[in-house]
């Protein structure tokens, strides 16, 4: 660029520009740095968040257990030899477990104080585990069987190092004697941390070591089924009407504004709607996953409608004109030609909407999903809970042992949701078509 020499009596423009240029470039670099800093901040927070749940939650996937050689003696379980299921159920399996542990630790079973401490090593639900084994296979009666049983939640926390073993006995709530036993048991190999399958299968429990997300998973599945069955057909139908048929008039304008607004209405308001309409007016039961599914359907509809409309809009008019040209009616054009081409877009939107619905908590609190449910729900009308609600309930419970479970459940939820979102991204990339 040729810069002309300054005119006499006029200031030298080039030198003014040159003087400012360092300052301006510094401003440029600063601005660029702020941009990078913003992204780094967001990503650092993401890492911090994942790091926090991972470090708090990974221990939930293993559980401290004892391998006990339980003597399932005939006279302790079924002294009259009736072999009837209800008699077998009545036996004191907790006592059998305590005796087995005492024998393995070399403790005299008549020492009542020691026995009490031994009992405190085992989970409160230890009798259920052994009973389940015996009732499913009564031929075990009379044998000595090795059975893995869960340790008490306090012991579990101690073995995982969440409670410092150098604390005083009253602070760590495990006596010196118990600590010595635990070391012995670990050295002899009948105390170990094993993969925690019960986390995935059990329902609610007041003892942290046996609490699981089984019921919550079933409840969430029922809800997702309801959402898919209702919101996909309704959402796609509504989008087709708005995009392909609707004349431009006040009525369709109202619907448009409405849908955009519904997408931004706080989710808790949908919960209030569900409480007032589905439970109080229609008389559906509280805590039922059907009601949860209905509420989430209303919440997901706008997402699916908006995504479907975008997918329909992306199909070029030439496709429609081609169909009209060979004599197809409007409905035929849409169902035979436009809709099949829009399917990948609709699918992506649906998955994103489902992921949102799966992670939603607030509206479910309104319709009584905060419930202590032990039994698996068999129909969508049974009381159940949902995965995010289970996380909420554990997060607000006081016991130490629930902390890792809360984070563990959050890990599972985040994993599922990231998989769903990734699937949506992959689908979008795979089927994306530029016309």
């Amino acid at each position: 660029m040729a810069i002309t020499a300054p005119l006499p009596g006029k200031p030298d423009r080039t030198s003014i520009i040159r003087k400012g240029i360092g300052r301006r470039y510094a401003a440029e670099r600063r601005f660029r740095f702020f941009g990078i800093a913003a992204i780094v901040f967001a990503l650092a927070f993401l890492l911090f968040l994942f790091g926090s749940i991972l470090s708090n939650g990974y221990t939930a996937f293993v559980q401290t257990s004892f391998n006990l050689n339980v003597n399932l003696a005939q006279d302790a379980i079924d002294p009259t030899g009736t072999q009837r299921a209800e008699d077998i159920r009545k036996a004191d399996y907790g006592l059998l477990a305590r005796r087995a542990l005492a024998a393995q630790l070399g403790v005299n079973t008549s020492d009542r104080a020691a026995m009490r401490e031994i009992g405190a090593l085992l989970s409160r639900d230890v009798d259920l585990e052994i009973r389940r084994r015996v009732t499913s296979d009564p031929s075990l009666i009379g044998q000595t069987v090795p059975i893995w049983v869960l340790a008490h939640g306090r012991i579990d926390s101690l073995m995982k190092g969440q409670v410092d073993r150098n604390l005083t006995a009253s602070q760590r709530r495990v006596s010196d004697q118990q600590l010595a036993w635990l070391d012995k048991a670990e050295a002899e190999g009948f105390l170990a941390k094993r993969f925690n399958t019960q986390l995935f299968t059990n329902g609610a429990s007041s003892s942290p070591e046996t609490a699981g997300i089984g019921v919550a998973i079933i409840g969430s599945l029922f809800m997702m089924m309801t959402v898919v069955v209702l919101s996909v057909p309704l959402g796609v139908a509504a989008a087709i009407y708005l995009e392909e048929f609707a004349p431009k008039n006040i009525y369709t304008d109202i619907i448009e504004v409405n849908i955009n607004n519904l997408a931004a209405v706080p989710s808790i308001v949908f919960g209030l709607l569900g409480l007032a309409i589905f439970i109080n007016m229609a008389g559906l039961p509280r805590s039922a996953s059907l009601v949860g599914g209905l509420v989430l359907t209303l919440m997901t509809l706008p997402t699916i409608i908006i995504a479907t409309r975008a997918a329909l809009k992306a199909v070029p008019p030439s496709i429609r004109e081609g169909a009209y040209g060979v004599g197809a009616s409007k409905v035929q054009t849409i169902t035979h030609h436009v809709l099949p081409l829009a399917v990948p877009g609709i699918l992506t939107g649906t998955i994103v909407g489902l992921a949102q619905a799966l992670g939603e908590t607030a509206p479910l609190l309104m319709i009584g999903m905060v419930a202590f449910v032990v039994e698996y729900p068999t129909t969508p009308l049974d009381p159940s809970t949902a995965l995010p609600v289970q996380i909420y309930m554990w997060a607000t419970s006081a016991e130490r042992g629930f902390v890792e479970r809360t984070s563990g459940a959050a890990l599972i939820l985040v994993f599922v949701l990231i998989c769903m979102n990734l699937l949506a991204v992959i689908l979008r990339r795979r089927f994306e078509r530029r016309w």
Partner: protein
Amino acid sequence: MSTSAIVLGLLIAGLVAYALGAWRARNLIKSTGAKLHSRPGYYGGYLAVWTALPALILTLIWAGAEHTAIRALVKDKLPENVQALSAAEQTLVLGRVNAIARGIPRLSEQDMEVIKRARLGFTTMDEAQRVLQTRGVVMGSAPAPYMITAAYDQATYQTSSRWLSTGLALALAIGGFAYAFSRMGPKLRARNAVESVVVGGLISASTIAVLTTVGIVFSMLFETIHFFQYVSPADFFFGTVWDPRFSAPGRTGEGQFGLIPLFWGTLYISTVAMFVAVPVGLLAAIYMSEYAGPRVRTLAKPMLEILAGIPTIVYGLFALITFGPFLRDAGAGLGLNISASSVLTAGIVMGVMIIPFVSSLSDDIINAVPQSLRDGSFGLGATHSETIKRVVLPAALPGIVGAVLLAVSRAIGETMIVVLAAGIAATLTINPFEPVTTITVKIVSQLTGDLEFNSPQTLVAFALGLTLFTITLGLNIYALYVVRKYREQYE
């Protein structure tokens, strides 16, 4: 028959009718050689629609209205002294009647005899309670004779309602089928008829969105009016004390329901969140759309999407177990007294949650600014950042304002983070290190747990919900209006 069985039956009948119609259409072509107006499938569809659709609509409407209608009928026949009770107590009575009515079909002959005798006064009501208990009807106290009478009525109504609905559905299905079958012929414009039904279906699906909004407004308005019978609107909107007391049956009208502290907490936390989300989100969006090369973009964008896909309960959990204690310890190191759940904790975490929302909306808006504006600015010798600051951002400003307003409405309606991390004490404080509470937190705490439904303590949740809905609706409508207007400007 239960509703689901009827619906299933009708669907099967529809399928059969479809097959029959298509078959008959093909036969017509074969036997008469006539040229039909539509393809055979449409005749099948025509027959199926006439068979199943009217009956389905009737069944669904019936199922929806049944519960309310029977309840009203039973309520009308209750004795006068029960009629005179308050609405809350009547609800209780009807609940017990309902429980007994559900137990009645499960009773054996003998049990039934006991119940009958109890009603006529031959045995005590305790006996009736015991019998019902064995069939899974758990009651706190022995039922009164009128309850059993009412339960009988209810059971009878229910049975006859079932029969009536099944019969009517059957009649409609047969009638529809006969009518459609009689009209079948080469001249019948089956395709047009079927297609207009399809379009009708599409229209009704799109109405659901409107119905949802209407449902939200009316259900909440109704309960809010109910609430204002206990507490005056002035006390609610301008009261500065929130102290609802606990709710117990029969106790009403106590406690204070001032909205101001909750509103203040909501605003305060949202403001903090905006101070985090707007600069970070906006700068990230600017960098992403103006500076970043394709490599950075393909990496950072999915990351931000992941941040957007994390459910709010996980953010709340993070605030509760990690970020709150972290801030508290950091504050203690600096000599500040920050409580674990504070305005700052909830606000910052909520801000991070909203970053992706702000950045993806601003990204769209910045990309919509025409390239010619940038080129003009570069041509005048401006640096990249000067172009962005003096040309692109001013041009995109209305859209960005709209995006920020949408983000504010999200922050105000956000629930789980504040439930877990903001605290529950309704205090009016300007100290960001202290806990405050929000509208959403109070909606949750007033409605979880076993509560008496017709008390101001629970009804206030609907008044709060309506307030929340109105605020966010206003923000959304204005923001969408701004965004849309801005978009048209450059199209």
